[in-house]
């Protein structure tokens, strides 16, 4: 690895140093090494639950309840995965969830980046009040709007109940949380960029599309990841609106293992839980590549 690889670190150094770059570089390398060590150690904390889920998922049903527990299964029961995922039609559930989460992610990325631009960059009387209204919609606990919302969708014309539409369509019309998030990111983008474009004759839409969006790639990446993972796992909405087993998302599929009085088959439940989060891990791994420092600014300068 060359020295350049370390160019813009943000690590906290422990001591105040002089102005010689070499010393700083040396300390930065030291920091990176220490950080790596800490990160490796920290993995035990972070990954323990995952290890436990994996171990349980490979046990026999009653073996999973044994005390003291076996750290490793007596004999790995790999067929638990097949059994758990075919006990209910998980292939269908994965397909349903992909459709639902996919539709929502596209909608939320487009609509919120659009709406947030208005709140971040354009002055108008009442803007602050409206923005506060956006936030206010987050402040009423969902528990008391469940029933009124369900009544609304049961009365609205169109196919709503027993479809994902009550969850997808509103997502294309903005989400307060993501509007707020993107607004904050836009506020961090220097205004000179859009102003120079404005003087050159670009329209507001053009500025949003050609300047703001490219400059906020990391933020959009974060929004995409959050939106996908949230909706991949979301439970309450589908619980209320989806009736048919064949239309279930993975979250409701997982809940199908839950059996009263401690009858839940833990080995299957854990196997299916791991299978369900696997796509999220892949999505994150792929999307986090957008988090590379410096692309933002160089993208404009170039």
């Amino acid at each position, binding site marked *: 690895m060359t020295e350049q690889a370390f160019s*813009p*670190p*943000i*690590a906290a*150094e422990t001591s*105040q*140093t002089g102005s*010689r770059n070499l010393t*700083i570089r040396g300390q*930065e390398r030291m920091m*990176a090494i220490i*950080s790596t060590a800490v990160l490796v150690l920290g*993995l035990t904390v972070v990954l323990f*639950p*995952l290890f436990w*889920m994996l171990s349980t998922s490979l046990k026999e049903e009653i073996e999973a309840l044994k005390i003291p527990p076996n750290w490793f299964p007596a004999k790995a029961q790999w067929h638990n995965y097949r059994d758990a995922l075919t006990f209910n039609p998980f292939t269908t559930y994965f397909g349903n969830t992909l459709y639902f989460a996919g539709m929502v992610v596209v909608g939320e990325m487009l609509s919120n980046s659009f*709406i947030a631009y*208005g709140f971040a960059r*354009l*002055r108008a*009387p009442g803007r*602050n009040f*409206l*923005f*506060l209204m956006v*936030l206010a*919609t*987050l*402040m*009423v606990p*969902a*528990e*008391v*709007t469940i029933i*009124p919302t369900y*009544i609304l969708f049961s009365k609205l014309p169109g196919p709503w109940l027993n479809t994902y539409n009550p969850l997808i369509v*509103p997502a*294309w*019309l903005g989400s307060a949380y993501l509007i*707020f*998030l993107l607004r*904050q*990111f836009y*506020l*961090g983008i220097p*205004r000179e960029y859009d102003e120079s474009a404005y003087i050159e004759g670009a329209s507001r839409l053009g500025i949003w599309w050609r300047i703001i969006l490219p*400059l906020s790639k*990391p*933020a959009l990446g*974060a929004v995409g*990841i*959050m939106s996908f*993972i949230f909706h991949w796992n979301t439970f309450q909405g589908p619980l209320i609106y989806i009736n048919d087993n064949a239309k279930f998302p993975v979250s409701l599929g997982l809940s199908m293992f839950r059996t009263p009085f401690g009858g839940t088959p833990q080995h299957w439940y854990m196997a299916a*839980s791991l299978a369900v989060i696997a796509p999220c*891990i892949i999505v994150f*791994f792929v999307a*986090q590549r957008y*988090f590379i420092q410096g692309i*933002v*600014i160089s993208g404009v300068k170039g």
Partner: protein
Amino acid sequence: MLNILPKRKLARTEALWFWFFITPWIIGLILFRGGPILGSLFLSFTEYNVADPPTWINLDNYARLLTDDIFYKSLRVSGLYTLLAVPLGIVVSLVMALMLNQKGVPFLGVFRTLYYIPALIAGSVAVAFLFQWLLNPSFGIFNYLIALLAGEEGLIPLGIKGPRWFFDPNWVVPSFVLMSLWGFGASMLIYLAGLQGVPTALYEAARIDGASAFRRLINVTLPMISPVILFTFITGMIGSFQIFTPAYIVSGGVGGPAYASMFYVLYLYLNAFRRYRFGYASTQAWLLFIIILILTIFALRMSRRAVYYEAPGDEDLI
């Protein structure tokens, strides 16, 4: 004087553009979100058990709430939780984001992914059960480690005994805070995204000036990502006041022991869906709304001094 007209016209065009951009949100509010919210406001003045239509009872629910002991207890539980969970959550996820943003660290993508995994499963039922085990006074790994390190026969024999976590009313809220910290990945992700937007030129300039990493953190990084910190602070506060699922699972919907896990929204949920007092639950919701709204406005006003926005001309922003 001549300039005034075009300026006014400019301002009007800008305002029109503003409305154009927020139109989707307005449509969503009118069609889908506004109605149910107003509906719940209406219900807060009624008695409603679902089986019969709501009956208007003026301010009775509000009066009853103010004399409800459990309501005050639940407000305290959620308030304390918010007070602890929000700042600690910000610190932990920010530190993790900084560590996972160093270019010298190998396999950065893998580390980021692995450290994000807890956030993936943090809200799930499986994890709530797992924490019940990890924090269990008799079987839990936490107390086992505490005994190993600082117990009577531990590495450093201080005779410290692990707390009884979910079973000691004084430790219940800290236990839930610990559980929430484990889901640090969600805010970490936002900070990671925020850190990418800090212009590298600023760091270079600071380095040439000989600023230490600590100074660069204080003078460059934190101000540059302060809008994002404000975001996590406000949404964290709103979310913490509304925390429900972990308490519902861990306490089995009872809120014990001694109401120490009777979080505000747990009590609200029980009133709505277990006791069929939807009017009363709506009243609780609207009181919480007012509390959060006041705190949010306060936080936004305070932030005007603390948060650094790139763009001049945003001084009037909240």
